[in-house]
């Protein structure tokens, strides 16, 4: 059965009150609640995406011993609003050789693919919009729309730089999807289900209960997933599709104003989603250490735990970007196919054998001897 946020709320009294308010119309009430919560999530993620650009500059300034943005608002915090206003007031230019329909469509595909993944992201045990049975599989599948958007954006511009960037971007995103998917398969195998509720529910709050430390193979799988996810979101050191020194600006060279803004927003939200997935698959997700209660205030604590883990990973992503140099294209492909994919397959086999040999127990359970 698919749990949703509405079916979670329906166990409390105020749901009946709301239902009476909507004249017992289940569908309309569900729609209203979903829409409200979806708006909250989108607003939150857009803010996080905007703050991401700010954090990126601040952290890079920090790493390079500069000050970074400090003019707009306190500590330059309102920089993101200034950026947004700037994007909207820039002229929208389309190359006259462009494929106009696809030029419009490409940012929309990127945005749709990223937004649709938010529907299954587990913020807390109740506040997960739809805990589908196929949760993680759905997330992997729908985020491949982003690769399509990147390719079409590069194609439709009809500029050489864009085309090269789009081609590279699409082949990079699809290549790195393989190690990521196989690492996720290892976790699905350990958890015994694809829903986020199942996966997170089988972990605990403390580090020895996380899937990352379940067995050595899962530990390696975490790093394979991280590298692959960095490459899938086109972040440095894998930002070849938009390598400034080689390709001007890659697939969005010809995009200006708001359309460029959509690409940037999609990218920053995707980084957030990827970090959230890593947190919930490998790092215990929303589980609060030590406490197992099912009351409404617990949801807030779980939400805080989840966001903390995710934002720490977000920081690490930005940190890596300003630390490591960019790869070459041939290195990129050999990293994916000659290192990550064989390691990921090996991990999957290792996890399967571990499941059978040790009957699904983690290292901690074996060492501590608890049932």
């Amino acid at each position, binding site marked *: 059965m*698919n749990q*949703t*946020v509405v*079916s979670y709320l329906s166990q409390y009294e105020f749901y009946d009150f709301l239902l009476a308010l909507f004249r017992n119309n289940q*569908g309309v009430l*569900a729609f209203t609640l*979903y829409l409200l919560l*979806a708006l909250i999530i*989108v607003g939150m993620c857009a803010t996080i995406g905007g703050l991401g650009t700010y954090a990126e500059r601040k952290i890079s300034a920090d790493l390079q011993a500069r000050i970074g943005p400090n003019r707009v608002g306190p500590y330059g915090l309102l920089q993101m609003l200034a950026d947004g206003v700037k994007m*909207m*007031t*820039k*002229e*929208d*230019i*389309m*190359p006259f*050789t462009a494929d106009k329909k696809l030029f419009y469509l490409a*940012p*929309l595909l990127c*945005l*749709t693919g*990223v*937004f*649709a993944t*938010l*529907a299954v992201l587990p913020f807390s045990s109740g506040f997960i919009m*739809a*805990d*589908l049975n196929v949760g993680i*599989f759905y997330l992997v599948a729908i985020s491949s729309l982003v690769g399509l958007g990147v390719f079409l954006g590069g194609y439709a*511009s*009809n*500029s*050489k730089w*864009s085309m090269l960037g789009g081609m590279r971007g699409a*082949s990079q995103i*699809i*290549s790195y999807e393989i190690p990521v*998917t196989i690492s996720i398969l290892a976790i*699905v*195998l*350990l958890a*015994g289900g694809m829903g986020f509720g199942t996966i997170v529910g089988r972990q605990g709050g403390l580090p020895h209960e996380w899937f990352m430390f379940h067995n050595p193979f899962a530990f390696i799988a975490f790093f394979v997933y991280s590298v692959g996810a960095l490459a899938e979101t086109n972040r440095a050191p894998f930002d070849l599709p938009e390598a400034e020194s080689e390709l001007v600006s890659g697939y969005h060279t*010809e995009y200006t*104003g*708001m359309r460029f*803004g959509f690409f940037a927003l999609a990218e920053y939200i995707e980084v957030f989603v990827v970090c959230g997935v890593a947190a919930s698959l490998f790092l215990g997700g929303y589980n609060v250490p030590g406490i197992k209660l099912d009351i409404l205030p617990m949801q807030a604590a779980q939400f805080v735990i989840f966001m903390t883990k995710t934002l720490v990973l977000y920081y690490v992503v930005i940190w890596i970007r300003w630390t490591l140099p960019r790869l070459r294209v*041939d290195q990129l492909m*050999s990293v994916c*196919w*000659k290192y990550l994919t*064989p390691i990921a*397959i090996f991990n999957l*086999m290792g996890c*399967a054998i571990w*499941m*059978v040999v040790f*009957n*699904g127990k983690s290292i901690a359970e074996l060492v501590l001897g608890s049932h």
Partner: protein
Amino acid sequence: MIPAQFDALMPIVIFMGLAILLFFGGHYLSVVLAPKKPSHLKSTPYECGELPVGSAWSMFNVRFYVVGLIFIIFDVESVLMFPVASIFRELNDMGQGGYALIIFLSFISVLIEGIAYCWKKGDLDWVKSFQHSHKKENK
């Protein structure tokens, strides 16, 4: 009172709808706010300040296709592995772990054969395949 189960799909549709709304809303704002002074030079595709030579379409090497080809085969195999992986724990608890392991490993071993073949033949090797085909580059 539990809502209808198919409503679990509603958030997906809502999020997609929100993406489309945001897209068109942003476009509308940019149409209202942005200046509109088109010129021919402005809408030329960027080519380092020079006038663009020819179209950017149709200048690609077959190695991109080979990467896509290997990808799609692995993608499909991972799709088939997902349901088996998600019942692996259940089978193991039922005492059929060995059977499931044999099935799973024999499936993966065929996958490994595929990647080993491509590795040996140099399909995973970006530079090598480039050297093979650089004579056809100018077509």
